[in-house]
């Protein structure tokens, strides 16, 4: 094509890419950084307030279901004694139980607890290729999320 057409085309394309680039830039915060439980504990000061993704296994006996959510501890498969407290407010998947492999997305609070609304689980025993995925109720809400008549009951 002639020079003018080519130049214009390049300009237009660059403009589109730039606009998209701005969009990406503005939203790159919607990402989480992957850490193991021991990394979180050792890097706690730099990670506090950040969005983290933690993978590990559910420490047996640590699951406590409450009205507001479920608390449990995530163990590090490589470092036996290291566990991290998680408070999860999403829908609990069917494969979530003691020893289950779990990947949790959440924020590390100043108290060292991860508050999460997104969890993926895989069952260590065999129902192969789990689809025990859940999603945050928050990620699709526009109106205010209210909790109706709720009480924080004692865990069973």
């Amino acid at each position: 094509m002639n020079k003018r057409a080519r130049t214009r085309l390049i300009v237009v394309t660059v403009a589109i890419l730039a606009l998209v680039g701005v969009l990406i830039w503005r939203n790159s915060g919607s990402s989480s950084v992957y850490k193991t439980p021991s990394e979180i504990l050792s890097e706690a000061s730099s990670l506090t307030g950040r969005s983290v993704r933690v993978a590990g296994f559910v420490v047996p006996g640590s699951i406590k279901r409450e009205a507001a959510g479920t608390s449990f501890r995530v163990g590090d498969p490589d470092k036996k004694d290291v566990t991290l407290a998680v408070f999860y407010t999403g829908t609990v998947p069917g494969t979530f139980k003691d020893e289950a492999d779990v990947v949790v997305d959440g924020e590390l609070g100043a108290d060292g607890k991860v508050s999460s609304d997104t969890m993926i689980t895989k069952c260590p025993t065999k129902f192969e290729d789990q689809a025990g995925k859940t999603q945050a109720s928050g990620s699709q809400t526009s109106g205010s999320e209210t909790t109706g008549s709720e009480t924080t009951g004692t865990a069973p």
Partner: protein
Amino acid sequence: MILLGKVAMYAGLFMAVAAAGVAFWSASREDRRDYAPNAYWLTVVVFAVITAACLVLLIGFIAKDYGIAYVAENSSPDMSLFYRIAAFWAGQEGSLLTWLWMLAGMSALIAWRNVEKDEELVTLALGVLNVVAVFFLIVLVTQAGDPFKVSPPGEAIGRGINPLLLHWAMVVHPPTLFVGYAGLTIPFAFAIATLLAGDASRRWLALASRWSVVAWFFLSVGIFLGALWAYVVLGWGGFWGWDPVENSSFIPWLTATAMLHSFTVWRRRNAFKFWALGLAGVTFFLTILATYVTRSGIIQSAHTFPGDAVFKILFEVFMVLILATTAGLLIWRRHEFHSPAFGDGEDGAAHGFFNKEFMYYLNNVVMSVVAAIITYATLAPAITRLFGEEINYKPEFYNALAAPISVAYMVVLALCPVVAWKKNDPSRFVRLLAWPAAATVLAGIPIVLAFRSNLLGMTGMLVSVFVIATVVQVYVKGAAQKAASKGIGFGGALVDLFRRNRSQTGGYLVHIGIGVTMIGIIGSMMYATTDNIAIGRKPGSKTKAPVSGMTVEVVKLDKLTRPRLEIAPSTYVIEQQTLTLKLTDTKSGRSLGRIKPMLKAYQNNMDRDQGPSAQVDIRAEPTRDVFVIYEGQVDEDLLKLQVKINPLISLVWLGSIILIIGTGWAAWPPRRESAAAA
């Protein structure tokens, strides 16, 4: 039996190598052309041999031969015949074999139809198709990919199937995707063929277009079924979570869309040749990447299969080869295929950018850029891991990008029908906008009233209405013109228009489908609400779900604890809680009837159990879905519930069906098959 299967695979591999070799060798020189038919027949034999291998495996499932490890892993003695057959493609090895079988079948069909014709492009394309088959066969004879592994002695038989997969959509979804992926190999094969031959004419399009549209059809259906299943079975309230495996099927769909449209520009204006060829290569590359992401273990996801080193390397090498070959050939042949679309009207080029060519250009740019972004974001964990901290992009990232880009894209879609090729006449353009604008304003009133809380969402819906309106205008004007010139009635003219222009009328129907779907997507993703509530256990307990505007009342809670209540092949419910609720619209007092979300705990025939899994209940209304998830008992008297409202989600399904019908119509061959489709 296993031996027969393995022999068939090796035989297929050997013959596919031979077929590819003969194909390329015979096409390389004039005096070798007579040998070409051998490649065609070899291609047919490859298909026969692979079919034999598939039959071995299928019979293994039907006859419950647990000596075959794959059969043992994916089925169990009490599974019904239907699910045992479907189990064929449930696991990794079987699904790859299914894909290969479809590819081999398509190649064989092309070979069989063209063996008399001595056409160089077809011979070369068969060469490429057989090379691809060789790749799959190599993967399938390695340890990781082999469907004919022997069960270790004492291997427990049949573990049963994940209960979440017990849904018709999940049975149909993999094969439809594979038809799509296999089908997209064909434009790639012909693109390589036409580049090798240095043939810059439209001929390869005539041979590959219909296959491409059919492939796109099946890919669309596959994605639709996956989304439907996610919504109804997974029950988190949505249908698309930007999961790596979901993204993997969506990305090639985007570039395939751009590819199909580039074909149109090549056919109509003899331009966009690099786009068409490049996109054919990239799309095929992306289908292999999709499989790689799903199966190599590089990305964590609830969907992914575990990885294997040999498998990864084979795929990585193949992907590099695809890109290198496509890029290399395009560079080598850049002069023969150079045919600019834009200019100042010289040599058939368009004038400036106020024309349809530019709309198609924008389409290609947007599809490519979005595909690139989603690819990067999906692979980010694997890529960033190499350089430091591993980063994962959350659904919020994708949604935040998708929303404004989609709305801008819909503007392009809306304008395309009213913009002419080469040079658009401004006054005609304005005239053609009048009626759609009026229709949009009219439909816009209820939209603005209901959805003004989100400016972007509201705009997106209005633009989508505009898209539908400009397409309807094309139909109406076309039919009116035909009626006038032929002296027939409008209805008859419209039918005639559809009959004689399947490609165009079908394509425009797809656009209507996109418009409708987009309204549904915007409604359900930007305006959905959730209530997390707790309600007393006793019948008659009432509570309000304030955001949803619902009042919920407990009718009863049934708990069934039976040792083995079989609900489906080899899968037993050990505890089932059914919560029956009465839903009432708080403001109007209108009853929505009863809704019964359930909580099920499963066990398979090996006594392994799975914790409670919520089975949602959905009250579908035309303008919204009310979605209730029962999450379980919190303590003695409290039950935990989620009530979600998904506005306009029915339009997602309706729009998808319109899209599918439109594609089917566009792909349907005309009664008198003229020259071309291979």
